[in-house]
C-alpha cells in the first residue's frame, strides 16, 4: 500500500491553534500543497498578517515576515521588489484585507505587484472575538452588531474579488470555498492558477476563500460549514473573475 495522502512538506508538523472545524487549517494545507507542487518552498517568503492566521510563520516551513494589521500587501511589495525571484505571498483575513488594509490591497493590485494574495473571508473578525467585518452578511449577529448587521448604518458586505477585478492591474482574481469536497477540489485548481501567475511573472494573483468560523458564528463545525454553502455562496459567488485562461 502506498501513502496517497500525506501532510505537505511545506507544512510544519505541529498542532495548530485553530478552533475545531475552522477552515483556516484546510486553507493552510492547500497553500502548503501548492508550495510543494511547484517546488518553491526554498524560494518562498510568506507575509503573515494579523488575525487568526497570525501564526502562519509557525506552520509554514518557509521564511516568513510579519506585517502590521492590514499592511501585508505593502510589506509584500517591498519584499518582492527587493527579491523579484522569490515567491511571495500574503495570507490575510477579511478584517485585515477589507477593512484596515483596503488601501494597501487596492493599490498593490493596481500596481500589478507580482505577489499572490490568499484572502480568507469568514465574515467576521475571528481573532479579536467576533466583531463585524466588512464582509459580515446582512442581519448577521456579531459582537458589534448585536442586533444583526443593518445595511443602512453598517453598510454592505463588501465583495473584494469583484472590486479588485475592476482594476486593470490585477491579473488573476477568483473566489473559492472549502466547505465540501467538490468546492475544495475546485479551490485547489484556482490556487494553482494563482501560483502559476506569479511563477510565470504574469502579475498579481488573488484567491478569496470563503471560510467557516464556528467559534464566532456560534455554530458547530457542521453548521458553520453548511452556512458557507447556504448563506455565503449565494452572496459571494464562486469562480474565476479574471484571468482564468492559460
Amino acid at each position, binding site marked *: 500500500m502506498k501513502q496517497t495522502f500525506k501532510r505537505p512538506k511545506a507544512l510544519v508538523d505541529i498542532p495548530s*491553534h*485553530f*478552533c*475545531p472545524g475552522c477552515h483556516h487549517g484546510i486553507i493552510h494545507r492547500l497553500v502548503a500543497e501548492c508550495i510543494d507542487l511547484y517546488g518553491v518552498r526554498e524560494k518562498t517568503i510568506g507575509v503573515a498578517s494579523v488575525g*487568526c492566521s497570525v501564526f502562519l510563520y509557525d506552520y509554514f516551513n518557509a521564511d516568513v515576515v510579519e506585517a502590521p494589521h492590514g499592511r501585508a500587501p505593502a510589506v509584500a511589495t517591498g519584499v518582492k521588489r527587493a527579491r523579484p525571484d522569490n515567491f511571495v505571498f500574503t495570507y490575510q483575513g477579511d478584517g485585515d484585507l477589507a477593512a484596515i488594509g483596503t488601501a494597501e490591497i487596492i493599490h498593490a493590485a493596481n500596481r500589478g505587484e507580482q505577489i499572490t494574495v490568499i484572502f480568507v473571508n469568514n465574515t467576521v473578525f475571528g481573532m479579536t472575538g467576533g466583531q463585524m467585518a466588512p464582509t459580515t452578511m446582512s442581519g448577521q449577529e456579531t459582537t458589534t452588531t448585536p442586533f444583526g448587521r443593518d445595511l443602512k448604518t453598517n453598510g454592505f458586505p463588501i465583495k473584494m474579488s469583484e472590486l479588485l477585478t475592476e482594476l486593470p492591474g490585477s491579473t488573476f482574481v477568483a473566489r473559492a470555498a472549502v466547505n465540501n469536497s467538490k468546492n475544495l477540489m475546485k479551490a485547489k485548481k484556482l490556487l494553482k492558477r494563482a501560483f502559476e501567475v506569479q511563477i510565470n511573472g504574469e502579475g498579481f494573483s488573488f484567491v478569496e476563500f470563503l471560510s467557516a468560523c*464556528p*467559534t464566532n458564528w456560534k455554530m458547530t463545525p457542521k453548521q458553520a460549514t453548511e452556512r458557507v454553502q447556504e448563506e455565503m455562496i449565494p452572496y459571494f459567488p464562486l469562480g474565476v473573475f479574471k484571468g482564468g485562461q492559460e
Partner: protein
Amino acid sequence: MYFDCIIAGFGGQGVMLMGNILAYAAMAEKKKATYMPVYGVEMRGGTANCTVVVSDGEIGSPIIQRPMTAIVMNLPSLEKFGPRVKKGGLLVVNASLVPEKEVQFKGIKCLMIPSRDLALEVGNERLANMVVLGATVRKSGVVDLKSLKKALYPALDRRYHKMIDVNIKAMERGARFVTEGV
C-alpha cells in the same frame, strides 16, 4: 478577612464562570472582590484561568503570584499553579481529569473532587465546575454556600436562569462531598 484564589482549566470547563460566581457571592456578603481573567491565544479549547480576590478592606493587587487557594480543573493547570500555592494553602483538584499520583505537594492541603461523577449524579457532566466551586467554598469558608447560590442570578445570563436549580444542586453536592467525604 482576606482570600485569594486562582481557578484554571481548559476553555470549555467554565472556569471563568466559577470566578464570577465566587466574586458575586463575596459582593452579596458586602465584601470587596476583584476578578481577573487570563485567556490563551486559542479562542476555543485553549487554556484559561482567573484570579479572584475577596477582602473586607480595599483590595490592592487583583493578581496574585502565590495564591492561598488554587482550583485546577485539568493537568496542565495543576502543573502550572499547583506549585504556586502558598504554604498552608488549599489546592482543589478536579480528580476526574487529574490522576491522584500527580498531586504531590508538601505543606498545603489538597482536596480531590471527582467532579464528573458527582456532576453526573445531579444532572450532567457540564456541572462539574459547580461541584468544584461548592466544594471549595465549603472547605475554605470564604463565603457562605447560601451567598454562592444567590450569586448565580447576577452571574448567569438570563437565558440560563432556568438552569439555576440544577446548578445549586451541583454546588450542594460538592459541598456535601467535603463534609461527608463521599
